[in-house]
């Protein structure tokens, strides 16, 4: 909206022209008082007046560069003024009627003028420039000297400053306006003959190019579009018209009902025009600047300013080459308004142009992006809106005919619906439904059923943005945003003073919207705020985390980084998601009055408290959230009676006696203090109060206290001292203190007989406080708020959070140890080869291949997908998945020496079942079978492979095993590790890295199973078998466990050795232990053991363990296999055994035969 900044009222009569200086803070005006005035924008005052014209001044303009002003007048002259020295420097005569307009050329020394004498004149002012520019110093060039010697061009009066260059005749009536083209040698003029004329000039001549006819009344102003090949003219026929510069044909027109247009001007930099008419000023742009776009999952399709379709990948933040050129789709001078994408067909529906010019076109996107291709449309037609509503249907709508047409993908109309004539636009609203946009409402419409599903009142809504889960829709109009649910029930409605441009839903369900110059957010509860100020208008497309993806008016994607903290915080608060609130408080620096005020207003003083440091605010907030401790703390700092008073009140309400007491002491409210002591039963303190009162000589207080304390003597004394003897006497008498009464009487010189006392009963006793209250005694329940509890909870949580970190480092270490194992394994194969005759092994492989080939024939009965799997598979798993168990078993037997298959039964059946699906097709008839392939994009049956589950579960499985290890559930851990071995044995991997990973998993499982089996064997030993116990404990330390797990083994070995007085070994294990764990209670214990052991350093029991010798542990007998002694291995995990164990079932895997001939694991597809 325009706002009036100031009024400038010095001209006498109408003002016909103004011009702002392009760089200086001044402007110039001309009017019917014959004057030209120059004004300062800073002082808002007229700086000076240029007099000279003898009649109305029609136009005034600044020179783009020189300090000149040009004015023209009904006195038939054009004058040029220097605004620095305020002089008239030229007066151009020649027109013989009113001069209606005169302008400088934007770059050359030319002027164009238009006059009612029916001519347009072009003037050369290079002489004037030469005369007024400073003479050049030094040597002049030859050309210049030559030029100076030539007689300059002059008019008939010998005037050389400004001479007429061309007189353009052609208008049949007076010419009202003439303007230069910014770059081309063209002039456009408009006159009372209702014609817009285009002129061209060369160095030597100028001629009429063409006329644009169409205005039905005078044309007062006309200009060239600053950047595009368009002419824009305004007329007294109440129209604005645009013309194609190259074809001189009308492009578009706009008509006002009652107002004649007078002037039109272009904004120097922005795509805006201004025009004035009989009743005001209008600012407009010729076409929308919003690039058409459509979003599908992680991809944005948009139309750039060259009308080419491009694709943007959000995850890669990468924009593609142009894919399609849409130039031929739209009629000339119409912009692509909307595009709609159909992922099922990878096709695009394009709508361009408005009203009668509206067209749609439906085309495929190219499979590969190789540059802007010309599309081959699959369907075209007229429409003002179009969108896909289903995989195989789209709708087109024309607001000219009010018809909604449903079309199939062959562009055949399958249904026509006549819509209410008020419908202006349609927008997609989920499968089969659209939104009908009417001036006063939006209707959710089911196209198939022709049914209105819901409606909502909103004026002039233009855009609708659905949230990702389609539960909410944001409807945008110029200045209003309404958020509704899918039943179109309003949840939130807000007004925005600046034009709303676009909106998108953030991941967390916050609406992020852009206005002309801001990115803002809106929450469902109506809270909103600014996130960022923009220099150029952006259209928000998608918001993901801190990244806001936008399209700008140049048709480019811009990624704006935004800070989502504020709105996430508010949203978390509104949703009472206090953990999130807390996380944000802890991790971000969200501060400022703003947020504190917000929190307080929303009733979360305890959260606000977390942000504030100012004592006074803290105190107020603490009182508000009943946090007396903080309030007290702050009150002490502030030490101000008003603050204390407040604190006292609150403390009393909460029954916090100590604080109340403190406050009364601070405020010296002794009476209140006394009463407080009375009701809380603090007799001692009350006596003290009495003494204080006495000391201060405050009788009234003393009396009060004596009443509270029921100290009769004190009271009598008080009466006596204040001269109230009768009262003293009565008191004494009633309390049975006859002696005292007597003495009072005698003092007063009276006798008992003189006094008439009424009869009185027993003396009253003051009720005793039965229980003394020292603890705060809550009257008003001040429980910890949700948030405070969360705060407390999380402080504990923090310490938990530390743990995963250490675990992470543990896994890091594990990764490192895995690497170590690689080295370890690399060193092994030499030994491996020793055990195998190379030739024999090759032979074995060949046999294996043959067997496989035979197998294929065996299972030739399998057809279809299962047959493909068998044909394409090279691993056992593929055969299993195909149900060819027998050949699979044969392969596993040959490759790995598996003999005991029973433990694999579950895994076999799982692999078999995991990739079979049943499709209900025709009910009542058998379901169709289908299969899950490893690569869903593999279309070719001859390459099809089954999806074999398990590989991606390996890591989690290891982790589970480690957890069980830590929890000391050793049997269960062994089961888990063994399962992993089975999974690996029947897996398929597709690259060498994964294969390597599988082998690592096998090695880890082997070591853990071996180590844990040894430990379990040790635990099962009878108490008296000390030697074996110590040996097994020692062997356990040889299993290649993660360092953090190996310490457990070392600890066992260390304590057992120490216990049975094997001090030398205990010292060794303690040393190993300390090399891993260097501090903490366990390390201290190890240190102690080591110190003690070192002092003795002998072994009581001799065991078969040499800490410094290199040996492996036989997995069958749990005895060392020293280097050089014969051994056999098991093919799946590589576990080692004494040669004597050959032919037994491996105790690690429970399925393979030790020492069986085997070709090795084959899982790479």
């Amino acid at each position, binding site marked *: 909206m325009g706002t009036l900044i100031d009024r400038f009222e010095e001209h006498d009569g109408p003002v016909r022209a103004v011009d702002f200086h392009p760089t200086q803070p001044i402007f110039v005006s001309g009017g019917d008082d014959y004057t030209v005035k120059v004004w300062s924008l800073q002082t808002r005052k007229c700086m000076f007046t240029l007099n000279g014209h003898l009649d109305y001044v029609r136009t005034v303009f600044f020179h783009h560069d020189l300090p000149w002003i040009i004015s023209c007048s009904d006195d038939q002259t054009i004058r040029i003024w220097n605004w620095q020295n305020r002089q008239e420097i030229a007066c151009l005569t020649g027109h013989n009627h009113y001069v209606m307009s005169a302008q400088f050329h934007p770059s050359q020394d030319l002027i164009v003028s238009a006059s009612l004498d029916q001519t347009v004149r072009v003037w050369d002012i290079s002489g004037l420039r030469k005369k007024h520019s400073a003479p050049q110093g030094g040597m002049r060039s030859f050309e210049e000297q030559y030029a100076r010697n030539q007689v300059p061009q002059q008019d008939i009066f010998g005037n050389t400053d400004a001479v007429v260059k061309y007189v353009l005749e052609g208008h049949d009536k007076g010419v009202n306006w003439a303007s230069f083209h910014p770059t081309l040698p063209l002039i456009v003029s408009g006159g009372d003959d209702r014609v817009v004329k285009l002129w061209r000039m060369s160095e030597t001549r100028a001629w009429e190019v063409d006329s644009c006819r169409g205005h039905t009344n005078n044309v007062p102003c006309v200009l060239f579009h600053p950047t595009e090949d368009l002419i824009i003219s305004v007329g007294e026929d109440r129209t604005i018209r645009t013309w194609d510069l190259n074809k001189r044909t009308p492009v578009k027109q706009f008509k006002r009902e009652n107002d004649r247009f007078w002037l039109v001007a272009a904004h120097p930099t922005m795509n805006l025009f201004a025009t004035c008419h009989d009743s005001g000023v209008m600012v407009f742009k010729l076409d929308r600047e919003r690039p058409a776009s459509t979003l599908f999952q992680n991809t944005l399709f948009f139309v750039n300013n060259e009308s080419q379709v491009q694709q943007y990948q959000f995850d890669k933040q990468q924009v593609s080459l142009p894919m399609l050129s849409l130039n031929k789709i739209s009629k000339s001078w119409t912009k692509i308004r909307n595009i709609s994408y159909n992922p099922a067909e990878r096709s695009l529906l394009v709508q361009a142009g408005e009203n009668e010019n509206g067209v749609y076109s439906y085309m495929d996107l190219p499979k590969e992006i190789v540059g802007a291709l010309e599309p081959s449309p699959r369907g075209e037609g007229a429409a003002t809106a179009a969108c896909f509503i289903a995989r195989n249907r789209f709708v087109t709508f024309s607001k000219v005919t009010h018809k909604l047409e449903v079309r199939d993908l062959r562009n055949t109309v*399958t249904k026509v619906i006549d819509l209410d004539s008020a419908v202006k636009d349609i927008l997609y609203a989920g499968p089969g439904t659209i939104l009908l946009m009417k001036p006063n409402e939006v209707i959710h419409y*089911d196209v198939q059923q022709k049914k209105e599903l819901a409606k909502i009142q909103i004026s002039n809504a233009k855009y609708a943005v659905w949230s990702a889960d389609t539960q909410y829709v944001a409807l945008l109009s110029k200045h209003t945003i309404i958020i509704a649910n899918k039943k179109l029930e309003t949840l939130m409605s807000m007004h925005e003073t600046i034009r709303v441009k676009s909106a998108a839903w953030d991941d967390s369900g916050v609406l992020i919207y852009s206005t002309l110059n801001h990115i803002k957010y809106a929450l469902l509860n109506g809270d909103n705020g600014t996130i960022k100020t923009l220099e150029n208008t952006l259209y928000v497309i998608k918001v993901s985390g801190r990244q806001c993806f936008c399209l700008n008016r140049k048709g480019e994607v811009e990624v704006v980084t935004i800070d989502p903290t504020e709105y996430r915080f508010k949203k978390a608060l509104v949703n009472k998601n206090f953990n999130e609130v807390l996380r944000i408080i802890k991790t971000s620096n969200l501060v400022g009055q703003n947020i504190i005020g917000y929190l307080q207003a929303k009733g979360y003083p305890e959260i606000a408290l977390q942000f504030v440091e100012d004592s006074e605010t803290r105190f107020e907030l603490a009182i508000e959230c009943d946090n007396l401790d903080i309030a007290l703390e702050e009150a002490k700092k502030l030490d101000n009676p008003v603050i204390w008073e407040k604190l006292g009140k609150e403390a009393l309400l909460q029954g916090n006696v100590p604080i109340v007491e403190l406050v009364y002491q601070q405020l010296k409210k002794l009476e209140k203090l006394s009463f407080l002591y009375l009701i809380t039963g603090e007799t001692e303190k009350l006596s003290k109060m009495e003494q204080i009162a006495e000391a201060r000589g405050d009788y009234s207080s003393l009396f009060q206290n004596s009443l509270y304390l029921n100290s009769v003597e004190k009271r009598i004394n008080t009466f006596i001292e204040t001269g109230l003897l009768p009262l003293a006497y009565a008191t004494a008498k009633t309390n049975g203190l006859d002696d005292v009464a007597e003495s009072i009487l005698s003092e007063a010189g009276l006798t008992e007989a003189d006094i008439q006392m009424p009869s009185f009963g027993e003396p009253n006793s003051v009720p005793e406080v039965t229980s003394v209250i020292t603890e705060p005694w809550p009257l008003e329940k001040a429980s910890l708020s949700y948030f405070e509890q969360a705060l407390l909870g999380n402080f504990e949580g923090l310490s938990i959070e530390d743990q995963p970190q250490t675990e992470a480092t543990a896994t890091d270490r594990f990764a490192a140890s895995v690497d170590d194992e690689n080295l370890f394994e690399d060193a092994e194969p030499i030994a491996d080869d020793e055990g195998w005759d190379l030739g024999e092994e090759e032979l074995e492989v060949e046999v294996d291949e043959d067997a496989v080939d035979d197998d294929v024939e065996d299972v030739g009965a399998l057809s279809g997908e299962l047959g493909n799997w068998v044909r394409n598979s090279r691993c056992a798993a593929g055969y299993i998945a195909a*149900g060819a168990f027998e050949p699979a078993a044969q392969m596993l037997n040959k490759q790995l020496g598996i003999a005991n298959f029973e433990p694999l039964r579950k895994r076999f059946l799982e692999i078999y079942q995991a990739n079979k699906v*049943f499709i209900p097709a025709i*009910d009542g008839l058998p379901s*169709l079978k289908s299969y899950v392939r490893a690569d869903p994009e593999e279309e070719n049956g001859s390459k099809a492979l089954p*999806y074999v589950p398990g590989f991606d579960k390996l890591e989690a499985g290891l982790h589970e095993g480690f957890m069980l290890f830590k929890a000391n559930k050793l049997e269960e851990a062994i089961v888990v590790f063994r399962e992993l071995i089975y999974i690996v044995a029947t897996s398929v991997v597709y690259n060498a890295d994964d294969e390597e990973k599988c082998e690592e998993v096998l090695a880890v499982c082997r070591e853990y199973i071996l180590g844990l089996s040894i430990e379990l064997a040790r635990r099962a030993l009878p108490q008296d078998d000390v030697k074996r116990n110590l040996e097994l404990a020692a062997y356990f330390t040889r299993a290649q466990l993660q360092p953090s797990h190996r310490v457990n083994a070392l600890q066992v070995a260390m304590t057992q050795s120490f216990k049975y007085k094997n001090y030398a070994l205990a010292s060794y294990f303690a040393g190993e232990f300390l090399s891993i764990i260097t501090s903490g209670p366990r390390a201290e214990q190890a240190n102690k053991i080591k110190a003690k052991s070192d002092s003795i350093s002998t072994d009581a029991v001799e065991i078969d363990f040499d800490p410094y010798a290199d040996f492996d542990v036989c997995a069958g007998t749990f005895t060392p296999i020293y280097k050089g002694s014969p051994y056999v291995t098991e093919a799946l995990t590589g576990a080692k055994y004494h040669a004597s164990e050959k*032919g037994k079932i491996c105790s690690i895997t429970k399925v393979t035969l030790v020492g069986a001939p085997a070709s090795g694991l084959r899982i790479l597809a």
Partner: protein
Amino acid sequence: MDPFSDSGELYHLRQQFYAAKYNDLANTNLEELIFSNEENKYRAYQLQIRSLLALGKYDSAISEIAKISVDEPLASEFEALQAYTEFLKNGKNKSEDLESLVSSHSDNETINLLGGLYYVTLEDFDSAISLLSSSQGFENISLLVYVHLLLNKTKEAAKILSNFSQISQDSVVFTLSQSWYDLINFDESLKSAYYFYDELSSNENTASTKNLICLFISNMKLLHFPEAQDVLNKIAELGDEGVKEWKTDLLINRIAFEILQGNEYTELLAELKKTNPTCGYLEDLKEKNQVFDSIVEKYAV
């Protein structure tokens, strides 16, 4: 008027039927609907009765048929429907009545279709194919596509579909048949099946457990496991609509899914044994177990 066009008064009922919203259709009071002609009315009844059959409510179907009295050619259609219903009810044994009706009315689309269904149920595929090949009815062609897919003759199915698409004008029967083919296949086909079922499932008029199961399958085949889990949750919300086959299929597919996810699935297997102890899947598993027994025995040391 083309009965399969998008417009037309049977459109909504047909859509319900093909989207497998049988309960909705079975519970519709057709008397309340206004039809422009008698034929449409009785076509609507046929759809309703077939919904009852799909739900396994044979007795209600018979009593519905009994209420109808109509002239030829519709009379024979209902007669055939009656015969087909009884065939289903009586344990799917050969029905002379139906066979003679079919052979004498081979040019009637509805009877032809029922004949096709009958022969497929009896696993007499050759008779079914030769019968159906002679008909131009959309559903008949659709059934023909199904039979070929069932027999794993995908190329033939593709050929029928491509001819079908020429005459179908994109009707729901065609897209449904196409989607079976797509769902069995991979890559682009599979994706289009996914979009098809996604669309059906997200529109309230066409969302049914059956479509969700198909959506679930497409997600699973695309290895989109979290999305598949999402669909499962939706199925759980919608509940079992009373069609036994769906329940069986869902359980089988869920077993596969849970294995792929590394989850426990023994309960599902137990439930399957309870719901449909005779289904082929369980028989197959049993057979596989026996094969495994022999393997264990063969390699035992």
